[in-house]
């Protein structure tokens, strides 16, 4: 009785309930999108984007704009800069990303440190879902709903784009539009997730659920749902648990995601480490009785 009572304490506080629900929503959206991000090989791009939005958030805070607008602007700018440098130079993509996102992040830090009255540095870098303002909350909900609707309608096209952009093009799908759409959804989601876990940990929300889901299923449709469920569940439970650890919502959510990923990596029924090992042993045990394939 006493333990249950203790466990339910966070629900007595409105700000906790709100934080838990919003975190869960953000987790679902990020998880959904992570299915595409991981399969497209854009994990690093997600990291870059999450850092590139920082100066936008700082500027928007200074000018009194919605944070999402500022974040979106610099996110798009950074993506454009990366594309430009990549096309106009002989540098590899990872070097270009490394340069661009640190530049943007540095600019953001500079803006924040030079303007003491602006957005709180901790909020941007580590997130602060417990103190999320109504206006920010509304932005998060709008971003989440729009992203879910777009993904719900266009997931097949985006899946084909992630699997085989060449084929998408030969089938007459607008590949450039799909590319842009996925980037826009990613930027918007990064902005939403920033509030929950902060710029440094956003990439975990956009990668870990999808990576875990990829190890759990061989069907893309199922992978999307599993990723959304994992993302949402971890965010919900992590935010709730953060009450007992006093703060660090982002740390709780992402640590929980990492734990789930670790379990999946080891024990996933078909693509887990142990399953692969069992299979390898079975194969060598039964001599050369390999599957007959034609």
């Amino acid at each position, binding site marked *: 009785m006493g333990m249950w009572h203790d466990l339910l304490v966070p629900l007595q506080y409105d700000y906790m309930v709100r934080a838990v629900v919003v975190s869960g929503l953000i987790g679902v959206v990020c998880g959904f999108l992570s299915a595409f991000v991981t399969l497209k090989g854009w994990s690093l791009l997600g990291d870059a984007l999450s850092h590139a939005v920082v100066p936008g958030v700082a500027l928007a805070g200074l000018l009194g704009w919605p944070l999402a607008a500022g974040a979106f602007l610099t996110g798009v700018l950074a993506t454009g800069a990366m594309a430009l440098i990549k096309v106009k130079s002989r540098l590899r993509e990872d070097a270009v990303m490394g340069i661009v996102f640190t530049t943007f992040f540095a600019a953001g830090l500079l803006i924040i440190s030079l303007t003491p009255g602006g957005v709180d540095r901790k909020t941007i870098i580590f997130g602060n879902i417990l103190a999320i303002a109504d206006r920010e909350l509304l932005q998060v909900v709008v971003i989440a709903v729009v992203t879910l609707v777009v993904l719900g309608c266009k997931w097949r096209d985006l899946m084909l784009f992630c699997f085989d952009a060449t084929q998408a093009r*030969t089938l007459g*799908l607008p590949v450039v539009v799909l590319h842009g759409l996925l980037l826009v959804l990613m930027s918007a989601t990064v902005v939403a997730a920033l509030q929950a876990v902060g710029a440094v940990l956003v990439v975990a929300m956009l990668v870990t659920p999808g990576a875990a889901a990829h190890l759990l299923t061989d069907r893309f449709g199922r992978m999307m749902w599993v990723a959304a469920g994992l993302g949402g569940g971890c965010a919900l439970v992590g935010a709730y648990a953060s009450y007992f650890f006093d703060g660090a919502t982002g740390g709780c959510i992402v640590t929980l995601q990492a734990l789930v990923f670790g379990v999946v990596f080891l024990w996933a029924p078909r693509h887990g480490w142990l399953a692969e090992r069992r299979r390898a042993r079975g194969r060598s045990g039964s001599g050369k009785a390999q599957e007959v394939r034609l």
Partner: protein
Amino acid sequence: MTTATTLDNPPHGHPDHVCWGGGAANHTQHRLDVRGLTVSYREVRALEGVDFSTECGRCVALIGPNGAGKSTLLKSLVGILTPEAGTILWRGAALTSAHRELAYLPQRGEVDWQFPITVRGLVEMGRYPNLGWWRSFQKHDREIVDRALAAMQLEDLADRQISALSGGQQQRTFLARALAQEAHVLLLDEPFTGLDQPAEEALRRLLRDLAAEGRLIIASHHDLETVPLIFDEVLLLRRRTIGFGTVQDAFTPEAIAATYGTPALAQP
């Protein structure tokens, strides 16, 4: 072998799109004409003034050394690369962008085999352009996918993830997708690479069957010995057209030597 003839006559299909192959009265409707095709990657010219002309019902081999422009030609035909000059005429009309009647089958190395998709899911991709805004499958689409799977003898493997297939099965899965797309022209990039002997023979028969049904097969190929077994026509390519014609006429030791530079290189 279950042939895919019925695919050309789906219940709600387009009767005017049927390929009749060699001997048909309206040849011009089923011709692929390439004239003066020139393609460059930035400063590097990959193809220069390539000419050839063929028609449905044929199997055409693209022969040439590495870097001769075989993949470039295939990708230009299917609209992935934009030519610098020249025209591609399909059934008398210039191709300016992707066309659903031309399907491209990638080299096996270019595919992400770990992608969470089954054989059926991959074949269904061929229907995406037909699905309308909501991308929902109708009975008609499912029937076409079923027929494509049956024609490639993949029914029993339909629920397998694509990495759990042999090389031959993987090729057949992509062929089935092209059939689901209702393509007339199949452009294959090194389809025989990495296949074992039985799988190679099976694919050979399959391509012959597809051509006999009236499809046009164009495949880059590096095994010179098997060219006469599979193909009707050869396009010898080395940035330019070195030769084009029936295997009997154009696939001569002299032409091969000219394509590969030295006679020694002509033997794979």
